[in-house]
């Protein structure tokens, strides 16, 4: 995958978390995801247009609870609509900002976010798109952003939207 499509997510996640949560994020080396690492909360966004695929922000429960409390300015009960809304808005901001930093000329739309909550779930993706996993370290705990996107080939007029499916 072209690093020019990965760097924007690193910039964006640091920008979103520092601006909205006053929470610095340290980034570990990105890797290609091979196995399934289970998480408790995932926010998912699909990308369509000149870049297609999915972006997933996945948290262990403890970390998600701390992050949401910072974002909302108060504790929010786990597995409530408000909790899911906050996770969805975070992945929405991270993805929206990242796409604005893509190499110029790319027209990309993002979907409304989906949120999966369930102990030890994993998120499956299109098998033909490599998934880059970026570990993020914060004072609230560690989480990951997973990016499985590809540029649409010039000869491929059919845009295939993200086909992320969740398996709890």
């Amino acid at each position, binding site marked *: 995958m072209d690093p020019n499509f990965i760097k924007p997510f690193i910039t964006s996640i640091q920008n979103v978390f520092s601006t909205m949560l006053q929470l610095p994020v340290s980034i570990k080396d990105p890797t290609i995801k091979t196995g399934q690492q289970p998480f408790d909360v995932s926010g998912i966004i699909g990308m369509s247009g000149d870049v297609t695929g999915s972006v997933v922000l996945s948290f262990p429960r403890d970390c998600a609870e701390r992050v949401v409390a910072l974002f909302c300015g108060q504790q929010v009960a786990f597995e409530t609509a408000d909790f899911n809304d906050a996770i969805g808005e975070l992945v929405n*901001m991270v993805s929206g900002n990242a796409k604005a930093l893509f190499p110029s000329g790319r027209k990309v739309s993002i979907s409304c976010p989906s949120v999966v909550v369930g102990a030890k779930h994993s998120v499956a993706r299109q098998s033909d798109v490599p998934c880059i996993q970026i570990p993020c370290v914060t004072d609230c705990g560690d989480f990951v952003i997973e990016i499985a996107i590809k540029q649409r080939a010039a000869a491929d007029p059919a845009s295939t939207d993200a086909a992320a499916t969740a398996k709890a």
Partner: protein
Amino acid sequence: MKIMLVDDSKTMRNIQKAVLAQLGHTDVVEACDGQDALSKVQAAKPDLLLVDWNMPNMDGLSFVKAYRQANKATPIIMVTTEAEKGRVIEAIKAGVNNYVVKPFTPDLLGQRIQETLAKKAASAA
């Protein structure tokens, strides 16, 4: 001064409400998407609207275009993750008066709101 917040995220509406409260604006009407906003806007008669772009049912741009057919004067601030220059131009052409990219600091949103209300007051004088 009545302000309408149009955003599908309750979290984001709450953050915006907190900023508005700091500025002394507590008369707020909320809508969760463009369709909901269209159904409420006539009765609510807001003096300012803060509108998200990406929402289910009716997105913010479609709402602005529909709203501007009947109302040319009430200022609208788009508050969105859509940061590309082309998107900003598209929104301004549709009738948006000011633009805030998420993420934002409370200070920035407050500044944009005050700028927009000051311009409205100046044009009404």
